[in-house]
């Protein structure tokens, strides 16, 4: 008895020591600021400039149509970006894991990683150089005589979607590749042998097999897109409002931290709700998708 507890004590202490950085990180940078923000979101300044408890910040959001629209728009576009990213990335992941030779697959994987060695800002500016009115693509189109005058390809929703998909691709590719890599090629052959067409093999065998990878990739891409500020701001221009810009405006432009905090919490609720709904509808579990 004595021996046992004597051995257990240092082991437990070691565990706490190992966990300490994580716990500190979570507490100091995530949990405490969020509690602070949450409290802030429930406070307003009354007519005498005194702080008072109120739900006005949340009421404000539901009353102002612009906020609402931006909110729904951000959610809908984030879902669209997630889906487009999946469409673009899946063939790439399939090619790398199932069709390319191992060495070629590795080179392709590195090519996929390469753009992420520079910052998102540089990548977005790269796209802007390509797409803007005086940009590379316009220059070629005009000099080849396909169009007469350069056209503006930036600052619209399509350009923004392009930027967001490009930014998200890697985060979809990595989980897809790792789940497809675990798939025995003979599963595909077996399905073919049992009479399945290519389409059936894809929808009934490959997609269900890769489902955990698709789920975790989708969650990451969706969250990153929903919380992205840079790309919608730079490539979307004035007509493509993103909800993060509203939060930024409240904090920085209007200096209304209470309102900004409320918006921040609404975005958190929204993303949690959509992820939960997505998991429910696809019958996947978070634990399985993240393992």
């Amino acid at each position, binding site marked *: 008895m004595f021996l046992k507890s004597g051995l257990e004590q240092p082991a437990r202490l070691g565990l706490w020591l190992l966990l300490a950085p994580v716990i500190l990180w979570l507490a100091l940078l995530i949990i405490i600021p969020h509690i602070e923000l949450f409290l802030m979101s429930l406070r307003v300044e009354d007519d005498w400039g005194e702080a008072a408890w109120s739900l006005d910040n949340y009421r404000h959001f539901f009353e102002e149509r612009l906020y609402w629209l931006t909110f729904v728009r951000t959610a809908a576009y984030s879902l669209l970006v997630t889906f487009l990213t999946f469409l673009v990335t899946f063939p790439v992941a399939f090619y790398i894991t199932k069709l390319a030779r191992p060495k070629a697959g590795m080179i392709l994987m590195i090519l996929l990683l390469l753009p992420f060695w520079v910052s998102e800002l540089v990548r977005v500016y790269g796209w802007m150089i390509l797409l803007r009115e005086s940009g590379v693509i316009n220059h070629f189109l005009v000099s080849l005589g396909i169009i007469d005058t350069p056209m503006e390809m930036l600052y619209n929703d399509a350009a923004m979607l392009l930027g967001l998909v490009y930014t998200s691709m890697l985060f979809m590719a990595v989980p897809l590749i790792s789940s497809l890599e675990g798939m*025995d090629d*003979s*599963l595909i*052959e*077996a*399905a*073919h*042998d*049992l*009479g*399945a*067409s290519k389409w*059936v093999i894809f929808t*009934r*065998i490959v997609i*269900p*097999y890769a*489902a955990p990878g698709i789920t975790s990739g989708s969650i990451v891409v969706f969250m990153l897109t929903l919380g992205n500020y840079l790309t919608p701001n730079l490539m979307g221009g004035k007509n493509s409002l993103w909800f993060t810009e509203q939060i930024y405006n409240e904090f920085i432009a209007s200096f209304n931290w209470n309102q900004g905090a409320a918006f921040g919490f609404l975005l958190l609720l929204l993303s949690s709700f959509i992820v939960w709904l997505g998991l429910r509808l696809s019958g996947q579990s978070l634990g399985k998708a993240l393992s």
Partner: protein
Amino acid sequence: MAAVLELRHLTRKFGDFTAVNDISLSVEEGSFFSILGPSGCGKTTLLRMIAGFQTPSSGDILIRGQSVLNVPPNKRPVNLVFQHLALFPMMDVAENIAFGLKRRKVPAAERKRRIDSILERVGLAGYGAKRIDQLSGGQRQRVAIARALVLEPSILLLDEPLGALDLKLREHMKIELKKLQSQVGTTFIYITHDQSEALVMSDQVAVMNAGRFEQVDTPRALYDQPATRFVAGFVGESNRFTGQLEAGGQFLAEEGLSLRVAAPDTTSGDAELFIRPEAILLEPEPHLNALNRFRVQVRNVIFDGSNTRVLSDIKGTGHEIIIALPQNQRFAHIGPGSEVDAGVAAEDCRCFSSQD
């Protein structure tokens, strides 16, 4: 009986390498046919060509008289049981078996009936709702076979499906497979590198080496009358001697032993001689005049129940031979170090030219 499968001059090349070299074959309806060969002999390529996953470089494949060269795998009346089974992990047992039936648009009620009946046939009645990872190795095996058999293929191809099982289960599944095949009556084509699997289960065995068939015969004939040097060495256990065959049927081994050979399969010259361990008689009766006689010094007795072997050297040559030791009291005195008389009949010495 009619041939369900016919191969005509089937060849498959990968660059300079010829994996399958001009193979012609005809398999009878309802038989259990095995293709036996060492790894790399081309048997998997041959099987994949029959299944449709690989296109022959030349030659033709006919199933019930119809060429299937232009028929893709999903349309061929042939199903394959994969080496690693390739069961779909995200589906339960019944869904796995239903997969092929759904592709053929079999109505749900009929589908259920057929799934239940095939599960019962393979001894897994009531297992329909189990997940694949809840099954043991042997049960998975049977699900994989049921999944293919439920489609009632003209031919069931099996790609070493017992390889992953442990020895005891493998022994058991051999008998089960043979029973199952005779019950359902489907033609089985079974490829393996394990001669015991091929010999136990098959009606006919093709021994394959370096892209060619060395001999196509019944298991007994392969064992008793091997047609080539490769078959003699590959099928069953043998003691092998290299040496010279002289005119008149006298074989002179390199180590100096001289053995008489009845009806050699080759003319005189460099030759190899094979003797089965059970063909060597210990302490033979003196009146058996026709025997090749020699003396052996026992080095070790390898006890393995009814399969007990004596490891010994032929006196005066040092050539090591293995002799089957019958488990009766007569030979109980034989142990390491004993010297024993031994003999072998001329008919039991199989001699082949070293050239081919």
